[in-house]
């Protein structure tokens, strides 16, 4: 396909323009929010559409970090994401490794796992379970109920199953028990897959908000996503109220945009790493039987 007709060239031109516009649509909202969040009040009022801040202003960010709520929520989110990711990974990989084996009742366990992929207990019974366990308003309510994603479990199991059996057998002959084989052989060999799932679990943990709304009445334990929801979607800060409280307040619009950016920042930071791994993760997912 070396030569190109004129219509082919036209196709290429139109295609590049179209894809460029699609890319722009994806990037523009972020760029706009970034620019406005760093702009001054005057610029925001005077200029119709800000594409790049002309006078850099950190007022919105200063305001956000001066409020107790936001800093605390940030801290809660960071710690929770770390704990949840680590916990989910431990829970998922141990169970995934166990169910590649044939043991007494293994078929029953596998059927149970597949069944939960098809039928979930529903919101109210799950909520009542968490409440009966006394987890409401504790961080356990955000850690335990989502410990294993059935889909991830099946994909990691598939990955373990693809590892060469000979290695396991050799280790077995050398006197290693299953715990040692899991720790010394299966896990090190699965590093790329585990890295992909670490990132996926971390993104999910960082983005989670509904479980917080469901299980946390105590607003001091809110995560950043819930605080953002409060700040932008439920009750936006009032410009008049702000100016009655502060002498030189940033406009509520820039505060909101700064908050959006802060809540997105970790995703943007890990995205380059994520990108390297998710192709692998998705491919693993599509191999799933």
């Amino acid at each position, binding site marked *: 396909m070396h030569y190109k*007709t004129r*219509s*082919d060239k036209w*196709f*290429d031109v139109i*295609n*590049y323009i179209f*894809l460029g516009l*699609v890319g722009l*649509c*994806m*990037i523009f*909202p972020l760029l706009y929010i970034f620019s406005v969040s760093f702009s001054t009040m005057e610029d925001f009022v005077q200029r*119709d559409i800000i594409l790049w801040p002309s006078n850099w202003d950190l007022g919105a960010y200063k305001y956000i970090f001066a409020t107790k709520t936001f800093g605390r929520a940030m801290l809660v989110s960071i710690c929770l994401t770390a704990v949840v990711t680590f916990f989910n990974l*431990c829970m*998922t990989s*141990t*169970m995934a490794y*166990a169910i590649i084996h044939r*043991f*007494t009742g293994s078929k029953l*366990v596998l059927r149970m796992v597949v069944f*939960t*992929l*098809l039928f979930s*207990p*529903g*919101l*109210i*019974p*799950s909520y*009542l*379970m968490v409440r009966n366990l006394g987890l409401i308003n504790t961080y356990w309510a955000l850690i*335990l109920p989502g*410990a*294993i994603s059935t889909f991830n479990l099946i994909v990691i199991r598939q990955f373990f199953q693809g590892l060469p059996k000979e290695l396991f057998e050799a280790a077995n002959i050398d006197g290693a*028990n299953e*715990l040692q084989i*899991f720790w010394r052989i299966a896990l090190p060999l699965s590093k790329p897959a585990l890295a992909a799932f670490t990132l996926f679990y971390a*993104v999910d943990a*960082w*983005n*989670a*908000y509904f479980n917080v709304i469901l299980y946390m009445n105590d607003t001091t334990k809110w995560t950043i*996503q819930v605080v*953002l*929801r409060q700040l*932008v*979607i439920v009750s936006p800060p009032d410009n008049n109220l702000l100016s009655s409280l502060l002498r030189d307040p940033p406009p509520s619009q820039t505060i*909101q*945009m700064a*908050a*959006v950016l802060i*809540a*997105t920042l970790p*995703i943007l930071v890990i*995205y380059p790493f994520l990108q390297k791994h*998710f192709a692998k993760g*998705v491919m693993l997912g*599509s191999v799933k039987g």
Partner: protein
Amino acid sequence: MPKKMTAVSRFNSEHSTKSLRTKLWSERYIFLLLLPGLIYFLTFKIIPIFGNVIAFQEFNPFKGIWASDWVGFANFRRIFEDSEVLRVLRNTLYISFMQIVFVFPAPILLAILLNEVANEKVKKFIQSIVYLPHFFSWVVIISISMIFLKPEGIINQVLQSFGYDWVSFMTKPHLFVPIVIVELIWKETGWSTIIFLAALASINNELLEAAVMDGANRWKRIWSIIIPSISGTIIILIILRLGTVLDSGFEQIFLMLNPFNKEIGNVLDTFVYEKGIKQSDYSFSTAVGLFKGVVGLVLVLGANRIAKRFGHDGLF
């Protein structure tokens, strides 16, 4: 004769219990690895399923499941008599259907156009941009769209600069579904191209070269070779999506709901949350949830079976 049989069978059973015990002992490390996951599944995925029995009760949280009064199917009868539930069901089906019509085709188009990009670097670059929104939380995405759609937001500024009147996007019920659709397209189109790009990558190159020899241009190749080649994948995915027609995207819609759009925007999942958690009407909302779960299960199994009939592996 009968005596002998008992003797034999006793011997067998003794043998098997002994071997079962040694077998279990030899599997002890596996069970150790299995145990945390098993406890998790039983506690949060299996036992709560039995909690659904409160749909058949007049559940009183103070009495608990064991002491609450049984009412049979009364709560389910209420579903079909309650005009609000019927409206919510209609909303769910409408939003889901509109998603299938408008959101589903977008990644197919994008994947075909991306596939036509010969320059690998350009292709990779565009891909990494369009995948990005998939990783943002729904809170971030709804926040961005609300900032954009506010009366003094950028979209209204643009409308006004072209001489149009400003629109109060978030309070107009008839704009609710279009906004849901656009947000969903923005978030997921790029990510959903992955599966179609994989299908496109498996098209036989000789077929395309033969078409070039026959003088087919790009448009013709797309129409008569590329689209037919991936139509199998498209059909399977549509069937499987139809199987989840009662799911209209809980998180997104939950965040979008406000008093102005509740009439059209309330879907089964948000209804269950509001009735059950907010108003503590546990039994009725559990009945609605169970109704949705069972219908959903039947639809998914049906869709999977049809997908298999189309010569695909299906999901399970």
